[in-house]
């Protein structure tokens, strides 16, 4: 058996860290798969043996990271100490600049000035720059390189170079100020990045925030006490009041409430719930007070499952990112090589070269190179995307779904519960005889039974204000019909077969592709109900949307061919196939895929599971009863077909967001590294100072994050 666990990770500075953690954790016994996301700062670990947080933490500590609770987001990362590091670095660097530039430099003499600069730089390096030096040290020890390695190598080179200049009494320029400035600017950039990242994260945070952390529980003495929501067990009673969110899934046993359930299933209108209705965790009570009995424990509510799905999907990666990861794996070593070549060229080869110029350029290369932006590009867009999708009732169990959506050529629909409501309704009621008690009898008999057809018949009379007849006897013959007595008369309600079995003449009932239920008494069929499964509200909109996108549509159903044909005609679906068994559905899709088609299967989850696993992309309808039962890449909450249109529109935006993010991060490196190496000197007559390089590097990550925020904004515009 394979177990999935998601933990938060503290201490990652760039995408390379995520790669290191991933590769090291994968080596642990029993671990099958590890996905680490730098953007969410989370790892999803799949293992065949349960692992405790402490065990994982132990492994992480060896690598220089640690575990943090999920949901605490990166709040702590902007800790007191980090901010102090930044403030100290900024302050000392500015002071250093004054010495470096003049006028203080002239006042105290050249030699003393150099020493003062060195001391100030040492302070910054020792306190604020420690993480970078540690990164460099880790590289020497393990050969694993991260962004910190590059920065660490840069500032150490600058520092050592200055030291040599002082000792050798030469008149070369020194770069102590650059070392301190780089530390200050990169910390500043990180601080901004952290802020932006938190903003990107806020979508996910919004989802987490709706999971109430405490609940008001009735204890054994029937007193109300406040407890941790996760500790609630099945069968315990909790109370919710106006303004509170339900903390567990349960059934209302007392009271009536008006709730906003938009966070759970995207339902925009407030719903009124009464005794016997389901009150789900995350629903916000707008009005009223209710007592509910937990039907699931605090840890396994629908909401919690949704969070688990979204959290683990965010660590899963779209294919587009795999390439990106491969690049960032070799990125740091390549940058070190380019930096060395830069040094060699400007020191040994170039006519205008000198040691200081060579050091200047080599450090700039190290500092401007930005694996960070590269690493953030895809995950930030995916994170923003899947969180906004989730808020619209579209749960992605696999983030590659957005990528796959682009390639879809064919859409295969299941019928019942997918395009149709899956709840039968009486479409025609025809009275054959003039018996005034037929309606009331049909209503009373149907109300006594829980069969879906009976429910639909009873429902069809709710408008007509009939009163219940006090039946004298009642008997339900499972799967066939109902026999009841009223005022000494025997009445029958059931299928045509049932009527025939009881000696009624059904020859005058016409053939129909719909389900027919008859009501009869005294040897006469009194009335006929034609019962159909109506088309869903947004089905036509979805179908014409998909047609306009040039997709080929298929309707494949287990229903009789005649029913499927009529249904497909009404929706204008050209390819249709009836009497199809679940396994044949899978084969149908397999055949399409063999022809090179990319199939999207939309079904109601459970009985379409085989077909769904065969399709390139699958979507499962979920009525909000049990998300865990639903399979598929995307779960459509509330089984609302309009959400499929939303998904296609949003997936397109998200993919273009990912692409523009990748473009941004690539262009920064493609332009920045040669510029820093002095490749364009011939034309520009300009060398990039190391501290400018550090500004450029910070802004690349920032631009990627801002682009992700822009994506979030534009996704929210889609309705």
């Amino acid at each position, binding site marked *: 058996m394979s177990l999935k666990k998601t933990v938060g990770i503290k201490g990652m500075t760039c995408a390379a860290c995520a790669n290191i953690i991933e590769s090291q954790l994968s080596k642990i016994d029993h671990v099958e798969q590890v996905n680490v996301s730098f953007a969410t700062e989370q790892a999803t670990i799949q293992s065949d043996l349960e692992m405790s947080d402490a065990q994982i933490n132990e492994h992480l500590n060896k690598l220089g990271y640690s575990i943090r609770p999920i949901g605490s987001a990166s709040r702590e990362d902007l800790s007191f100490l980090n901010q102090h590091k930044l403030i100290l670095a900024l302050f000392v660097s500015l002071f250093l600049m004054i010495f470096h530039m003049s006028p203080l430099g002239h006042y105290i003499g050249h030699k003393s000035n150099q020493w003062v600069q060195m001391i100030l730089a040492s302070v910054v390096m020792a306190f604020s720059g420690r993480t970078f030096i540690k990164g460099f040290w880790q590289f020497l020890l393990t050969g694993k390189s991260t962004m910190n390695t590059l920065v660490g190598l840069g500032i150490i080179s600058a520092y050592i170079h200055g030291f040599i200049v002082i000792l050798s009494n030469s008149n070369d320029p020194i770069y102590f100020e650059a070392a301190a400035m780089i530390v200050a600017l990169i910390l500043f950039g990180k601080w901004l990045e952290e802020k932006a990242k938190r903003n990107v994260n806020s979508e996910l945070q919004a989802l987490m925030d709706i999971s109430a952390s405490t609940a008001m529980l009735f204890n054994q003495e029937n007193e109300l006490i406040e407890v941790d929501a996760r500790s609630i067990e099945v069968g315990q009673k909790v109370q919710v009041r106006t303004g509170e969110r339900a903390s567990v899934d349960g059934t209302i046993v007392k009271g009536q409430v008006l709730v906003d359930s938009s966070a759970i299933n995207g339902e925009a209108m407030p719903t009124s719930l009464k005794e016997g209705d389901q009150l789900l965790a995350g629903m916000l009570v707008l009005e009223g007070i209710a007592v509910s009995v937990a039907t699931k424990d605090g840890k396994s509510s629908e909401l919690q499952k949704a969070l688990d799905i979204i959290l683990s999907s965010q660590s899963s990666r779209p294919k587009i990112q795999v390439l990106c990861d491969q690049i960032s794996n070799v990125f740091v070593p390549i940058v070190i090589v380019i930096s060395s070549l830069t040094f060699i060229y400007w020191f040994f080869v170039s006519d205008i070269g000198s040691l200081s110029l060579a050091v200047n350029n080599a450090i700039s290369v190290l500092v401007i190179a930005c694996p960070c932006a590269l690493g953030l590009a895809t995950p930030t867009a995916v994170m923003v995307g899947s969180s906004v999708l989730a808020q619209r009732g579209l749960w992605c169990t696999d983030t590659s779904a957005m990528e796959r959506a682009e390639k879809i050529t064919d859409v295969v629909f299941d019928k019942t519960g997918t395009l149709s409501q899956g709840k039968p309704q009486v479409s025609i009621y025809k009275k054959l005889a003039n018996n005034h008690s037929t309606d009331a009898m049909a209503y009373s008999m149907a*109300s*006594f039974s829980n069969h879906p057809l009976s429910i639909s018949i009873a429902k069809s009379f709710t408008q007509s204000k009939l009163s219940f007849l*006090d039946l004298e006897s*009642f*008997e339900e013959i499972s799967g066939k019909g109902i026999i009841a007595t009223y005022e000494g008369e025997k009445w029958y309600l059931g299928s045509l077969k049932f009527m025939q079995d009881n000696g009624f003449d059904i020859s005058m009932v016409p053939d129909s592709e719909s389900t027919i239920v008859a009501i009869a008494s005294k040897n006469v069929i009194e009335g006929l109900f034609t019962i159909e499964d109506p088309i869903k509200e947004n089905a036509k909109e979805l179908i014409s949307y998909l047609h306009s996108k040039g997709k080929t549509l298929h309707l494949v159903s287990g229903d009789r061919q005649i029913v499927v044909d009529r249904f497909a005609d009404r929706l204008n679906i050209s390819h249709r196939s009836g009497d199809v068994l679940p396994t044949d559905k899978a084969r149908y899709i397999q055949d399409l895929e063999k022809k090179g088609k990319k199939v999207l299967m939309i079904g109601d989850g459970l009985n379409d599971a085989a077909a769904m696993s065969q399709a390139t992309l699958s979507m499962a309808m979920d009525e909000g009863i049990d998300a865990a039962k639903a399979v598929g890449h995307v779960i459509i909450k509330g089984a609302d077909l309009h959400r499929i249109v939303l998904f296609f529109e949003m997936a397109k935006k998200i993919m273009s967001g990912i692409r523009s993010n990748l473009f941004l991060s690539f262009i920064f490196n493609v332009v920045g590294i040669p510029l820093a190496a002095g490749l364009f000197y011939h034309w520009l007559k300009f060398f990039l100072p190391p501290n400018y390089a550090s500004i450029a590097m910070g802004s690349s990550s920032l631009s990627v994050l801002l682009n992700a925020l822009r994506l979030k904004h534009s996704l929210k515009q889609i309705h």
Partner: protein
Amino acid sequence: MKNYLFSVEGMTCGGCASKVEKALKAQSSTCSVSVDLAQKLVEIKDIDKTAMEIKSAIENSGFKVTSFKGL
């Protein structure tokens, strides 16, 4: 006041029987209830509720009514 005989599925022991009895007494305190577990029958005497109300009382306590007749 009326008398009924209900067929109820799902009752397996005395506990179930008393659960049904309690549910019915809650509806009408004056009625008398006797349960025949083997025959899956519940006999209700002197009750002032309709069959529909009795049926939902029994079904709300977790059992299924398959038929009933007035006595």
